[in-house]
């Protein structure tokens, strides 16, 4: 199977190498971020960067746990890499590092280092680092290939469980993971519908206790932080306005959703087609918005240079561009 991620990584490396600022590769666990980072490492080697000027930090390796403060980590890196030559620091799952923002910010401030990091948590690029680096973060977001349904169901279920356990529950300090799971299940059943926190709370709440919309928001945030789902805000084409209060969620990997939750009770074909269409538009690199439920459009995409396009999913499941 052709691996789009690696080709994307090659093109991306070509465009960002040598530019100031740290380079981040983010995406769902198992999407191929580490493979991309390995690829970048090999590319650097083939471009003549010697091994002494490249340091791969794989946070899953227990040897890195001995560095319990950011000072220790920085000191180790400074000692390991040559002091007067440019070097490359490649960090796998940077969010697992203690004070990752400080380590990355400090390394990126020095001309000595060029930093590449992967993360399956959106939180790494949350307020702190995003505010600090502004538009100088170079970011590659890996999305699943649309034909990924070729891998076995059993593997997809295991992948979902792994993500849910390590990337959703574990970092979010949520005490009732079964409710979090029910939230994801509800989202799967209502895929492509405008999300109402109140209705969701009522549907998910245990028999004798009503969850607050705030709690539900935390659950949604945990799912989104782990790249399992993504919010698609509503756009009003007539006014050119985006609403941050009206939104739908789509699953980042529709096949993982299907493998774990099975088909929705109603309109499964339409829901899945909408999710695939959303993913397809995200692959095009534009901002993707949904529209009002009764609208003739299903999505509006806005490219980086501001060009808008309307999209409608027809009855045969084909995505067609519509003038707006």
């Amino acid at each position, binding site marked *: 199977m052709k691996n789009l991620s690696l080709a994307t990584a090659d093109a991306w490396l070509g465009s960002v190498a040598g530019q100031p600022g740290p380079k981040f590769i983010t995406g769902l666990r198992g999407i191929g971020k580490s493979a991309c980072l390995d690829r970048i490492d090999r590319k650097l080697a083939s471009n003549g960067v010697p091994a002494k000027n490249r340091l791969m930090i794989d946070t899953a390796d227990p040897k890195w746990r001995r560095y319990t403060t*950011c*000072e220790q980590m*920085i000191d180790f890196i400074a000692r390991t890499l040559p002091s007067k030559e440019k070097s490359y620091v490649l960090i796998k799952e940077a969010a697992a590092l203690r004070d990752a923002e*400080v380590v990355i*910010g400090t390394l990126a401030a*020095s*001309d000595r280092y060029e930093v590449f990091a992967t993360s399956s948590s959106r939180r790494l690029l949350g307020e702190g680092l995003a505010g*600090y680096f*502004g538009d100088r973060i170079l970011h590659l977001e890996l999305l699943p290939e649309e034909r990924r349904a070729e891998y076995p169901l059993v593997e997809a279920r295991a992948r979902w469980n792994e993500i849910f356990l390590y990337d959703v529950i574990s970092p979010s300090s949520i005490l009732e993971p079964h409710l979090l799971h029910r939230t994801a299940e509800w989202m799967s059943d209502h895929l492509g519908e405008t999300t109402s926190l109140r209705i969701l709370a009522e549907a998910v709440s245990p028999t004798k206790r009503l969850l607050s919309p705030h709690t539900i928001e935390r659950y949604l945030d945990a799912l989104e932080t782990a790249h399992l789902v993504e919010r698609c805000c509503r756009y009003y084409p007539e006014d050119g306005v985006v609403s941050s209060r009206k939104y739908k969620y789509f699953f980042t990997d529709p096949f993982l959703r299907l493998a774990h939750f099975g088909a929705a009770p109603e309109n499964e074909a339409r829901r899945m087609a909408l999710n695939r269409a959303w993913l397809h538009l995200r692959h095009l690199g534009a901002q993707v918005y949904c529209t009002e439920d009764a609208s003739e459009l299903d999505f509006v995409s806005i490219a980086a240079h501001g060009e808008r396009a309307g999209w409608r999913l027809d009855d045969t499941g084909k995505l067609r561009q519509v003038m707006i």
Partner: protein
Amino acid sequence: MGRKKTILIADGLSFGRQILKLLLREQYEILEAADGDEALALLAGRPGEIAAVLLDEQLPEDGLHEVMAYLSRNDLKAKVPVLALVSTNETAVHARAYAAGAVDVIERPYHQGRILDLLANHTARFVFPTEDSGAEARARRVRGQNTVFRFGGRQ
């Protein structure tokens, strides 16, 4: 290596302070403040010891102006240069920092070489307090004579 000069870093964001601390720790002694009050307390408690202040332009509760006002009142503006930390290259923000009394502006994300150059220039004339002046300052502190400022505004 000779005696290190002391720099005060006043930034509301903990990770911003930590980054600066790691970038400057080999060359300078570092003091940290998370808001204007902490910065003022350190300036008042260590008279003559602080060679420069790196101050977040958006320090909580208008800390930038509080610190500048304190330095003016105590005739320290020329002795303790303030470098403003800003998150943008917008001219208006830089102009605001200069207007408040900053001698220079440091943009985020930081560049270690530039910060070290700026600090070397702006602290070149710094004179370390002598043993006597240090003892005198400590005695003043004990006697409570250092409270020439009041948090929250001019006396």
